[in-house]
């Protein structure tokens, strides 16, 4: 019963954080566009939050540049569980046209685990909404588990994060 309530709440109150790890702006303005009158995602309970600590879903755009990598990982670490990551746009999915560059690591999933990919260059706001809706529909809180479980990042990821912790000061920016 309680788990049903929690599941209901999580599906209806996804607060998102947006991070551009090296994209061209196209996806970013489409994400910002979600908030504006034509799309108005507040209808679905989606709020764009400013601090990683307040967010449930990380919307990532752009391929990951070498300079962005640590920051992206740190933002992910700062988010409280349960959390989800959505790669918005072709670049975030695979690196897109920028594959092969000396400063590129590829898609978001090279750095943090991704729950949903939304390809498109850039994806239309409708498509982003559709993607988010599908992600929300998969959120469930099984009856036999306590409501606070998080998708464990792969072991290898954890290791590299641990290596980072020396310099990360968690100042929330």
């Amino acid at each position, binding site marked *: 019963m309680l788990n049903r309530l929690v599941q209901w709440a999580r599906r209806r109150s996804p607060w998102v954080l947006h991070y551009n790890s090296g994209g061209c*702006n196209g996806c970013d303005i489409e994400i910002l566009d979600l908030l504006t009158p034509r799309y108005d995602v507040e209808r679905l309970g989606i709020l764009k939050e400013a601090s990683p600590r307040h967010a449930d879903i990380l919307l990532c755009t752009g391929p990951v540049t070498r300079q*962005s990598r640590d920051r992206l990982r740190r*933002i992910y670490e700062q988010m409280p569980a349960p959390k989800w990551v959505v790669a918005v746009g072709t670049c975030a999915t695979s690196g897109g046209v920028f594959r092969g560059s000396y*400063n590129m690591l590829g898609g978001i999933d090279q750095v943090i685990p991704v729950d949903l990919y939304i390809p498109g260059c850039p994806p239309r706001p409708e498509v982003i909404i559709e993607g988010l809706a599908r992600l929300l529909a998969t959120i469930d809180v099984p009856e036999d588990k306590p409501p606070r479980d998080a998708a464990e990042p792969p072991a290898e990821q954890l290791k590299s994060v641990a290596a980072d912790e020396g310099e990360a000061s968690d100042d929330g920016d």
Partner: protein
Amino acid sequence: MTRVTIPIGPQHPLLKEPLSFMLTAEGERVVDSVLRLGYVHRGIERLAEERSWVQNVHLLERVCGICSHIHTTTYCQGVEALLELEVPPRAQMIRTLMCELERIHSHLLWLGVLAENVGFTTIFMYSWRDREMVLDIMEDLSGGRIAHAVNIIGGVRIDPDAEQLDSIRRGLDKLQQQVDTLLDVVQHERSLRVRTQHVGRTTKELVRRHCVVGPVARAVGIDEDIRRDAPYAAYDRLSFKVITESGGDVWATALVRVRETSESLSLCHQILDQLDPGDVATRAGRRVPAGEVVSRAEAPRGEVIYYIRSAGTDKPARLKIRTPTLPALSLLGEQLRDIKLADVPVVLSGVDLCIACADR
């Protein structure tokens, strides 16, 4: 007073894109800043050397998601000059039309971001709602809201019919009313003026020293616009005013941008009236004869310059891009000194940063 370091970015609600400003502040007063770019450095200049001339159109459209069309325009006209191609007048006109639509889109977007940054969400909502009309027009023309893929080497890819042109005219008329309202708001809304007037003030001399171009330069009274001074595409057949202001503060740049939006709307109407039937593209070869070219164009944020060198192969030997944000960032170093912390978002908005452009 103790000094604190306040990081702005790379992830910060003020910035839609990552760059990092380390502000040194004494209480609410910012005394110094250190800029770090490179979070969106994709190495496009090097990538371009490894792609063919045609593939590069696709790549360069993704230098920036806001002013994508101006990049391909600058690139294509450069390559066309190397190829000594004659681009049909209709293609030139359509190119110019897209340039102006993009300027409207970019300026409305900017106004929204400015409003959002001073906490005026309502204006953000309204100006972005109006921006949707331009996006609709561009989508109608090209099939894409943000990435248009209109330019090809030798012309354009689209050929709008009379019905489309009519619907564009209707859209432009509706938009004109909205832009007039927004101009009225920018001119008269008190709390917006309180936040933007006398903020981020620059002088002609400072702007010159930092080689700043575009609306920021025009807001201190520098009467320069590549569209008029070195007409490219179809600008020599169109008439328009170059908007200047003298204030030099963020409010002045806002006025310049909103008035320019009106000017762009009138340009669009002129283009629609003068759009004669004809070819929209000429055939271009895969190889480009050896040579070099400097191509300039006026992006929404100011002068864009491309240097292209061909060694006579199917790939460029060097392609250099400089976008107007880079000098603006240089100016920001001066502006972010001895101002209030609360004015930082306003000053940053004032120069209309496009980090994706600056980092390449």
